[in-house]
């Protein structure tokens, strides 16, 4: 019985709005920061950095959960282009604020939150179902997939 309830009761994390709006979908989680220019192929939304744990994986249509941005100042430009190409994530959840990731979220125009009261990188696994509420600054997690 209790196991069933655990699966149904979602985890709710509260943090700070980065970009407004609400979206939900399947999580794609990485413990590694992501490079924009030279790290992502915007046309497909695929991570291309050699040795990255997401190498070859596309974030298109996913809720991207990651520590934050690294690399060139072309970060926002690459993710902006991904939006135009239709390969942007549905929403973004991250832990370390930088100018790169802030501007990238803004021009991608997807619901984004940070500064959560629990570690999203530990609490969310790839495949979990996640709702990101940028207006409220919350993340709701259904472990194991769509509830």
């Amino acid at each position, binding site marked *: 019985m209790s196991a069933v309830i655990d699966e149904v009761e979602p985890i709710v994390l509260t943090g700070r709005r980065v970009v407004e709006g609400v979206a939900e979908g399947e999580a794609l989680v990485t413990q590694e920061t992501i490079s924009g220019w030279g790290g992502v192929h915007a046309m497909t939304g695929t991570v291309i950095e050699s040795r990255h744990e997401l190498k070859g994986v596309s974030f298109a249509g996913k809720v991207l959960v990651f520590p934050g941005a690294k690399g060139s*100042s*072309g970060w*926002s*430009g690459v993710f902006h282009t991904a939006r135009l190409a239709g390969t942007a994530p549905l929403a973004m959840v991250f832990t370390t604020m930088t100018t790169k990731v802030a*501007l990238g979220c803004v021009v991608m125009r997807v619901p984004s939150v940070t500064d959560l009261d629990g570690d999203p990188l530990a609490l969310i696994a790839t495949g979990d179902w996640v709702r990101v509420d940028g207006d409220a600054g919350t993340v709701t997690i259904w472990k194991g997939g769509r509830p």
Partner: protein
Amino acid sequence: MVSLTTAEQAMLDGEQGAATAKAMNLLIRYAEALGAERFVETNNVAGVPGSSTPWIKEYYKADGGDYRAIFSRFDLDSDEVVDVPRMNAFSCHLQGGMDPELWREQGMTEAQHANFAYDEGQVAAHGIQVMKTCTPYLAGNVPVMGEHCAWMESSAVVFCNSVIGGRTNCEGRESTSAAMLTKRIPDWGFHRDDFRYGRHAVRVEVPVDDIFEWGMLGYFTGDAVQDTIPVLDGAIGAPSLIRHKHFGAAAASSGGVEMYHMVGITPEAPSAERAFGGGKAEEVFVYDAAARARTYERLNAVGDSRDVDFVMLGCPHYSIEQIAQAAHLIEGRSVSASSALWIFTSRAVKATADASGFTRILERAGARLMTDTCSSISQAVPPGTRVAALDSAKQVHYLPAIMGIEGWYGTTAECIDAACTGRWAGRLAA
């Protein structure tokens, strides 16, 4: 909530026209994303305003597909197309996609060149300085200590913060384009004193004395501290611009270093105590002979064949001093038939190289002095390139990965030897 001054509110309300209102709107969204509480004024902005690939122009075809459309829709992230006036801030254009004359040699098509020439004409027509370099500080845009800037280009950002004591975050294309119109950027991060203190220490125990060694130390440092601020101390030799330039570019690429302190060397580090802002190093990393050897190995991990068919120098863009040195090293020799030597710099520095006879010496030896871009940015290497030799840790970090080739890291002299012999004979001197 970011608070606005009367002037900022007026910009948002359209008193300076629609484009500035859109720019202010974007910057407010950006400031709120960051959690910034206000803006700082800036009159020194470096970005890539309105320059775009044919793909982006095609995407905005319904909006006209022209500079106005791209600047409105992409740079300002506006839903409508607005008239784009002359920029208000002192604004310059960083590196671009091809050499304005040698583009054919770089493998560019007529169509690509036409796109480039159109954008450049528009950049100029909007009052933006066509510097076309990742080293604006070598081309006439030298910030001063304490000056608030809004710069893109990680190697330029780390130079501005660390070596000059200027203040800039690593901005993006949209924020710099918006700042060119509004002269505003969020008051966050490196604009604020308490963000600029060191967090980790790096103790340098082997002498570090030329761009080759400074580049390796930078690569080690970025790897160690990632994107935090390191405070370096120890056996660091006399500083110079080109040493800092290679160090910072390397640290920004292996980690994400946007500012560093060197005790007794950089302007905000007269002492370790001041560099740490009174705090303590969270972690101490040691750069000793073993760390140096490991760094060398890592930088040369993608080198296998010693038949070098391409040597690229000028990452970050070469200074006139480095061009002089390269000319000196190659004078009387010539580039091997099985190799090529391309050297990248800015147009401003090339003007001095031309006047000083260095361009002629290089060309006589079969090398090419190119401007505006680099092999990584333009993905341009001579046809058939398989193995490159580089004197830049940043370039060896990026170019082989981007182009799927092998790469060697060495001294400038080793690279020029490789260009002249077609063979890599670099090694780590004790």
